[in-house]
Structure formats: C-alpha cells, structure tokens
C-alpha cells in the first residue's frame, strides 16, 4: 500500500535538509559574530526526520514542536525569513519577537505551538487532533519531542488519551540519546522508547532517524493511519545533535567515540551520497540546490536585519484580546 518516494520527493527531502542545515549554520555563525543573541538549541544532525516526514504532510496539517524545533518548522514550511526576524526581535518576526526560538508559532504553515516545557507539546497535540477529528477536516497532527521527554507524565497521559480517543496524531520522538547532559540510560529504564507504545495499545515504530527512506516509510504508515481514522502512532527516530544541548554546551559529557560515530553518521552527506549513488541527482544538481538555499538564507537574514525592532509598547499587548494597549 505504501509507495517508495519518487525522485521528486527524494529531492524535496534533500531541499528541506539543506535548508535546515544552512539556516542552522548561519544562525550559529551570526550568533558567534555577536549579531544575534538568544538561547539556541541547534538541531544539526536531526534534519532528516522532519524533512522526510513533512513531504508527506499537507500544508494545513498541524505541527507541535519544542525549543529544539527550527528543523521541524522549516521542514513544515515556516518561512525562514520570518524565523530570522523573530530571532532578531523584529516586528516582522513570526511572533513580533515576543516568542523567540522556544515559542515560534505560524498558523499559516500549521506550526501551531512551540513549547519550552518538556512534554507539554503532547497534550496540546491531542487537542489539535481532537479538533480535526470533530471537524472531520482530515488534518493530521505531528507532535515532536525528545527522548528525555518520554519520562515525563505528559507523555504517558497524552499517549493514553490519544489512543482511547483514536486521535489523528503522530507522536515523533526524536531520540538523540541525550536530554541536556543526561544520557538515555540514566533517565530511561528501557532501550527502545517505541516499545512504550504497547502500554497504550498503540503501534510503535523504531527507525533510523538519519535514513530518509526509513523515516519516510514509518511516517507514511503513521500518517495514513491517522488520516484514515486508525488512530495515533508513536515513531521513535534515532539520531544525534551535533552542537550539544544549546550553543555554548561543551559536550564534555559525551564520550568521544560516541560523538565521532554520530558525526560519521551525519545524515546530510550520507543522503547526498545516496542520492548520487542511486541516480536521483548528480553532485552538480545537489550543489545547485544548496546554492539556492544559501541565497535564501542570505535574503532571510537580510530581511530580518532590515526590519524594524518591535515597538516596546508590544510588551503589554496580546496579554488579552481586549487588553488596553
């Protein structure tokens, strides 16, 4: 029933991965140059997961993500220039600079909530999915979280509720093996988080999160199930984050061989090679994609810095709809 992705789709995935990677690199270099200031949780290394999932989603499908979520946002279609403007505190930012990296929202692309509270996105995802179920609008909700988040109560309650109500929801655990500085086994009593789906009578899929085809196949199954009324799925996608928990993290707590192996499995060059080796694109074509992406990054950054800073009066606006401005 599920088809393998065609070349067009495979290149769409590549394009998203490239956009994630190049925006990420530019955020970091701009921060290091002192032109941007923010707590930044890089998802470099995890780009394959949202890229492969998002090509299967409709624009109006819902996304919930976390502080480490720029990759999810870009893949889902939030325009990078609005993200840049947000991070730069500009009035043109997704949230006028009031949300910041941990709270990007962009309903037009389905990016409904970004949360900074571990686990908190899953209950909200249930509600987005409930809305779709009651309205019968066919939308699917994807809610992202990390391995560490699978130990918090909200995970359990949401998985159970989603299952009992058969919600059109895909839980995506991006397992990068660390929660801040805490290794998986220090906080979690089993090896595979996907196995926890059994506690809810829910299908649980464990995949290599650095393999676009594996992620695509799992997502296809999960999204189809959700879209057709078959209820939720838990996908655990194994990956790594190369830049530590947030920029500035020394990474001391990561054993060197583990880090080296993770970098060796970097999904971006690996996928590039695979695309070329399997005749979906040659190096020149891929370079052209990257070049176009880089130009977009330049423009996005320029857009941000050319935009006006948000008016300080905004500090008391949007508290309530009827709040005196």
């Amino acid at each position, binding site marked *: 029933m599920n088809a393998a992705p065609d070349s067009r789709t495979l290149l769409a995935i590549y394009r998203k991965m490239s956009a994630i990677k190049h925006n990420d690199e530019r955020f970091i270099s701009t921060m290091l140059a002192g032109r941007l200031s923010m707590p930044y949780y890089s998802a470099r290394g995890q780009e394959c997961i949202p890229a492969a999932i998002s090509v299967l989603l409709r624009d109006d499908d*819902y996304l*919930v993500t976390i502080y480490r979520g720029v990759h999810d946002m870009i893949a889902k279609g939030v325009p990078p220039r609005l993200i840049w403007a947000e991070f730069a505190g500009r009035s043109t*930012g*997704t*949230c*006028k*600079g*009031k*949300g910041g990296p941990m*709270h990007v*929202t*962009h*309903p037009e692309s389905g990016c*409904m*909530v970004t*949360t900074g*509270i571990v686990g*908190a996105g*899953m*209950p*909200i*995802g*249930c*509600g*987005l*999915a*409930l*809305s*779709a179920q*009651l309205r019968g609008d066919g939308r699917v*909700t994807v809610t992202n979280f990390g391995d560490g988040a699978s130990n918090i*109560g*909200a995970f359990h*309650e*949401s998985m*159970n*509720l989603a299952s*009992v*109500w058969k919600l059109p929801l895909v839980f995506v655990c991006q397992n990068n093996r660390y929660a801040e500085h805490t290794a998986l086994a220090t906080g979690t009593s089993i090896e595979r988080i996907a196995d926890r789906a059994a506690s809810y009578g829910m299908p649980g899929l464990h995949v290599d999160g650095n393999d676009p085809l594996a992620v695509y196949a799992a997502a296809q199954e999960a999204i189809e199930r959700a879209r057709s009324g078959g209820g939720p799925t838990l996908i655990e996608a194994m990956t790594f984050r190369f830049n530590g928990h947030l920029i500035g993290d020394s990474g001391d707590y990561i054993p060197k061989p583990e880090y080296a192996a993770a970098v060796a499995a970097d999904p971006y060059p690996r996928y590039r090679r695979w695309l070329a080796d399997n005749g979906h694109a040659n190096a020149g074509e891929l370079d052209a994609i990257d070049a176009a992406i880089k130009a977009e990054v330049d423009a996005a950054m320029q857009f941000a810095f050319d935009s006006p800073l948000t008016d300080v009066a*905004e500090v008391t*606006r*949007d*508290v*309530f*709809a*009827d709040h005196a401005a």
Partner: protein
Amino acid sequence: MTIQTSKADKATIVQALNWALDDAMAADDQVIVFGEEVADPEGGGLMKVTQGLSTKYGSRVRSTPISEMAFTGAAVGAAITGMRPVIEIMLMNFLAVCMDPITNHAAKLRFMSGGQTSVPMVIRTMTGSGFQTGGQHSDFLEAWFCHTPGIKVVMPSNAADAYGLMLGAIRDPDPVLFVEHLLSYWTPGEPPERGKAIALGKARIARPGRDVTLIGYSRSMMDLPVVAQKLAGDGIDCEIVDLRTVSPLDMDTILGSVRKTGRVVIVHEAVKSFGVGAEVASRIYESLFRELKAPIARVASKDAPVPFAKHLEAAFLYSHAEIEAAVRGTLL
C-alpha cells in the same frame, strides 16, 4: 433540561450552568465539553452540571481518563484551532496536577505568538469547605491564577450570574478559570435570562449602602448579606460589592463604592495571606489613600490547610462574628 421556560420562579446554579452550556453548545458547534465523568454514562459530572449534554451533543461531550494534564493541554490545542472547549477539573485542588498547560501555555500563547493564536477555553472547577473532605479537596487557589497574566478568573455566587458569566466566559476570546462553589449549587435564585451573556470584568453592587463597603465573591456572598442585614438593625448601612470576576478586577465599581463609604472590609474563603484581598486592598489604597477613613480589613480563612473534623472545619473558615467585628472596627 432544555424545556425550561421563562416562567420558572427560581433556578439553582446547577440548572443555570447546565442551561448555559446547553445554550452555548446549541448556538455554536465549536463549543465542546470534556473532563472526568462529564458524559451521561458516567453521570453527567460530579455535580451533574453537564447532565444530558452528551446525550444531546454526542462526541462533543466526552468523559476523559484521570489525566488532567493531557485533557487540559488538549483543551489548549483545540482552542487554538478556534474551538471553544469547556473542561471540568473535578475539584480545585486538582489544578495542582495541571498547572503547566494553564499557566505556561493557555495564559501565554496569545502573547508568545504575537497575537496570532488565542486560547478561548473555559476551565470549570469546584471547591468549598464544609463537606469534611479535608486538606486536599476544598482549597481556594484563585490567587495563583490572578497572579498569572493572560487568564481571567470568574467566581459567581448566584444562578443568574453563573449563567450569564458562563456564556460570557465561553464567548470570551481568552482563557477563563471559572470557579463554582460546592455549597451554593442548589441554592435557588433568580433565574437567568436565556441567551444573555454577562461581560467578564464587571462587579455588581449586591446591596447599596452608605457606611461601609463589603467586598466579596463566591461563598462570601452567602454571608455578607446576612451580616449586612444584622448590622442594618444597628443603623450600619453596608454596601456589598460582588466581584464576580476576580481577575481582572473591576476597579471602577470598587472605587466608586469606596469613594462613597470610605470604609472597606474584604471577605474571602481562601486563606488570608497573599490572597486576593491583599491586591484589592492595595489598589484601593493606591487610589484612595487620603479618602479612606479607616484601614481596610481583610477577613478570610485561617492560614492553614483545611482540617477534616466538622468543628475544626468551622473554626478554619471566617465567621459572621469576625465579619461583623471587622465592619465595626472600620467605624471606630
């Protein structure tokens, strides 16, 4: 349930709230209801406020697992898509297991999204001492939410207000914590006018008077008229202000009354320290310091957990004698 006519003499708060939910659901199919036991197979809610709704509105009314965090968060999610969830947290103390979706999310998403999303949800909850349910089932925690920008707090004291404020809360574009008092559910009162919402943020003069302003809400509105009546016999004419919406405060009404009386007693069931009374008092002082004839008195429950035994529970709560003494104190 839906066949009540305007001829009814009296209504209880249970009826009024049931009508409000029914009318809101009939008028707007985006209004949905969920919480533990709210559907009819599970009894239509602990206090039967939601009785009949699931039979009438089907899957728009759902009983949930005991998972306050998940279903409160789910209400947030549904609300940002434009639905209007009205959820029930069975007792106010249970809010302690689901503060995060309320205070970190519902109250903040409008602001953090730069105004792109709003969270038009209502959280109904109940509480009240007097039922010997002990330390974990009868607290008043409204001050926590009043101190959280982005969420409104409504605490009605009679059937007509309960109805109108519930409609108002459901139509409000922002999250509302709606606190019902267990003791007042069955007290008959003036019936509401069906379909007519009361805007949030407006206090009500429950009794006009000249000498002292008594400010209360929720349960204390069962006590203040009794004390005022008694004091009237001694020629002390109390004005009673029912806040109804505790946050945001209706300072116009409050200050209007205090300007007239120059004396204030604030009464609430929540423990006194760091409670709502402190804010009300502080704001009155800030505006009318020179016009006040006496320091503002706060009458509230003892600074302690709620005890179990009936006679201890009674001693925990403020008494009519304390209110009376406080009023007389402002007149010394």
